[in-house]
C-alpha cells in the first residue's frame, strides 16, 4: 500500500506538469481550433529567459515573471505578426505555421544558450523531504503539485468567473457574433495566445529543476501534455487537468508494477482506449453541426 501511495505521489507531481502543458494546448484549441506545436518551444524559451535573469541576480519571483512574460510575448507576437496576416489560411496551414515557429524557436534557443545541460536554480530543495507515514515527498515535488494546482485554479477562475473569461468563451464559440457584440476578438485571441505561452513557461520553470534545463527538455512533456489534452477532451479545461493527472499517475503505477520499457507505450495505449470509448475525450463535448 505504501508503495502504491509512493507511486501515486510521483505520478501526481509529473501529472501536474502534464496538466499545465495540456491546459495551454486546450486554451488555444478552444478559442481558435489551432493545435500549437510550438507550445513546448515557447515554454523552453520562457524558461531560458528566466534562467538568464536569475544569472543576473534578479530575485526568483522577478526572474520567473520575466520568463513567463517572454513566453507570453512570443505567443502574442506570433498571433499578430504571423497568424493574423495569414487569417485566410486553412486550419492545417495555421498548424503548419506553428510547426515553423517551433523550428525557429528551437534553433534560436540553441544558438543563444547552446545545447549544454544546465542546472536551473530553484528556491525549493530537491533533497529536503517530508514524510507522511511511510510515503516520502520532496519539497520540490510538493511545490510542483501545489503550484500546478494553484495555476490551474487561477486559470479556471479567470475563464469562468471574469468578464475577460466570458469574452474568451464568447470568441471561442462564435468570433463574428462576439465581435458584433463589441468584444474585441483580436485582442482576446492575442490574450489567449499570451496566456497559453505563459502557462507553458510556468510548466517549463517547474520542470527545469526536476529534469535539468536544456533546449530539448520539453520534448517528452509536450508530447505527454498533448496526449493528456486529447484524452481529457480538446475543448475542456477540466478535461486537460484530469487527463494530465491520469496520465502521470498511470505512467508511474505502470512503470512501478509492470514495466519501465513500455511506460510511454502504455500511456498512449490508454489514450487510444479512452478515445475508442469516448472519441470526444473524457470531459469533452460532442458537437453536432446542423446543415
Amino acid at each position, binding site marked *: 500500500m505504501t508503495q502504491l501511495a509512493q507511486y501515486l505521489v*510521483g505520478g501526481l*507531481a*509529473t501529472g501536474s506538469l502534464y496538466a499545465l502543458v495540456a491546459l495551454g494546448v486546450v486554451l488555444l484549441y478552444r478559442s481558435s481550433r489551432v493545435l500549437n506545436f510550438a507550445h513546448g518551444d515557447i515554454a523552453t524559451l520562457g524558461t531560458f529567459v528566466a534562467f538568464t535573469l536569475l544569472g543576473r541576480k534578479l530575485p526568483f519571483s522577478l526572474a520567473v515573471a520575466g520568463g513567463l512574460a517572454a513566453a507570453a510575448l512570443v505567443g502574442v507576437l506570433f498571433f499578430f505578426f504571423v497568424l493574423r496576416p495569414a487569417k485566410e489560411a486553412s486550419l492545417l496551414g495555421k498548424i503548419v505555421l506553428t510547426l515553423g515557429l517551433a523550428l525557429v524557436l528551437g534553433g534560436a534557443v540553441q544558438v543563444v544558450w547552446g545545447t*549544454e*545541460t544546465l542546472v536551473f536554480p530553484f528556491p525549493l530543495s530537491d533533497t529536503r523531504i517530508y514524510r507522511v507515514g511511510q510515503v516520502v515527498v520532496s519539497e520540490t515535488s510538493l511545490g510542483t503539485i501545489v503550484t500546478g494546482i494553484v495555476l490551474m485554479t487561477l486559470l479556471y477562475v479567470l475563464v469562468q468567473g471574469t468578464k475577460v473569461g466570458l469574452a474568451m468563451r464568447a470568441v471561442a464559440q462564435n468570433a463574428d457574433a462576439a465581435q458584433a457584440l463589441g468584444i474585441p476578438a483580436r485582442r482576446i485571441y492575442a490574450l489567449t495566445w499570451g496566456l497559453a505561452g505563459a502557462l507553458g513557461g510556468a510548466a517549463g520553470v517547474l520542470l527545469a529543476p526536476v529534469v*535539468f534545463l536544456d533546449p530539448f*527538455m520539453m520534448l*517528452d512533456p509536450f508530447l505527454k501534455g498533448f496526449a493528456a489534452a486529447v484524452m481529457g477532451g480538446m475543448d475542456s479545461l477540466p478535461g486537460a487537468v484530469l487527463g494530465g493527472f491520469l496520465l502521470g499517475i498511470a505512467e508511474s503505477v505502470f*512503470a512501478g508494477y509492470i514495466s*519501465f520499457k513500455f511506460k510511454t507505450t502504455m500511456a498512449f495505449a490508454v489514450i487510444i482506449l479512452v478515445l475508442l470509448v469516448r472519441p470526444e475525450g473524457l470531459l469533452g463535448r460532442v458537437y453536432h453541426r446542423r446543415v
Partner: protein
Amino acid sequence: MRTLTRLIIAMTVVAALGTAAVGQPAERGVTPTEIVLGTSMPMSGPASPWGMGVGGGIDAWLRHINAQGGINGRTFRFLIRDDAYLPPRAVANVRELVERDGVFGIVSQIGTANCYANRDFMVESKTLWITPACGADMWAGMRERNRYVFITYPGYVDEGIFLTKYGVESLKAKKIAVFYQNDLYGQQGLLGVKRGVHAFQAKGAKLVAQVSYEVIDAEVTAQALKLKESGADTLIIYADPRRGALIVREIAKVGYQPTLMSTFTLMDPMMFMLAGEAWNNIYLATYMPMPGMGDARTDAALATITRINPALARLPFNAAAGVSFVEPFLEGIRRAGPALTKERLVEAMETIKNWDGEMIRGVSFTKDSRQGINRMFMVKSERGQYTKLSDWYTYPKKF
C-alpha cells in the same frame, strides 16, 4: 592525314588522363598539405555533454598540432556532424563524411547503438575508424573484418565485470541493482554486471534489480522508487549524464542510500554540477589518468586544449577522453611518414607497442589485435574531486 589527326587526338586524351591521375590525391582525404578527418557526435540532446567534450577535445588537440606545423608537413581539418545521439542521424552523417566529404578516417563517434548502426558500413567501405567511443565488446570475434579499426576504449561488459568484482571484494556488495539506459550501451553494462555477479555468486553476490529508462524519458522518479524497493545495497549506473545525475538525486529524495558505482562515462566533473552533493562517494572505473589527479602530462595537455577552447574547462574528462582517442592515430601518422596512405598508416599503427600519449597510456596494437588497451582502475568521487583507489586491473583482449 586523317590517321595522323586521330593519333594526335588519342595521344592528347591519354596525356590528359595521365595528368588528371597525377593531380588526384594519392589517398582519399589526404593532400600534400592537409588531412581531412570527420566524426559524428551528439552535439545536442541528452548526450550533448559527451559530444561537446569529446568532439571539442579532439578538435582542440588537432588545432594544437596544426599550430605546431602539423605532422609530416600536413595540417588537419576536422569535420564534426551533430547526430543528437540518434543512430539514424549518425548513419547519415558518417555516410556523408565518407562518401561526399571524402574524409581520410572517422575519429571516434559516440553511442554504442550509433556505432553499431555504422559498423557494417565502416567495415565494408574499409574506412579508417579510430576509437569509436562505444562498448568495445561489439568488435569481439571480428578479427578478420576489422583491419581498419583501432580502439583505445574499454568494453562495458569488461567494465561491468570489474565494477562488480570491486564492489563484492572491496565494498562488501551482496545485493546489487543496475540502473541502465535501455539500448546497447546500457545493456552491455548490465551484461557485464550479470557476468560479474555470476562469477562472484559464491561470495554471496546477487542481482536483485535491473531498472531501465528510455532515451526519451524526461524523468526517473518511478525508477528511483523501484530501486529503493529492491533493497539493493549497491547500485551500479549505466546512464547518460542527465539521467545519471537525476537518478542519484531521485534516490536521495526518497531516502535510499546504497553504495553507488558508475561507469566511467559519467566521470566528468560536470556531474558534480548536475547532481550536486548526490555525486559524492561514487565509485567509478577509469581507463586513463584523470586530469587533476597528479599526472603532470595529463594536466598539461588539458591546459593546452582549454587554452584553445576555454569552454572545455567545464567538461575536462570528456575533453581529455577526446584527446586520448586521437593521440594513437596521430602517432601512427607520424610513423607512416610523408607518403601517407591508408595501408601505410595501418602498418605504422601495428608497430605501436606499449606507447604512452599525453592522456592515454600503455597502447599496443598488433597485426592480430586492434584492442589498444585492456586495463582499468578504480576511483572515488569526494567533494568535487576523484581519488585513485586501486591499481590497474587487466582483462583479457578479445579482438
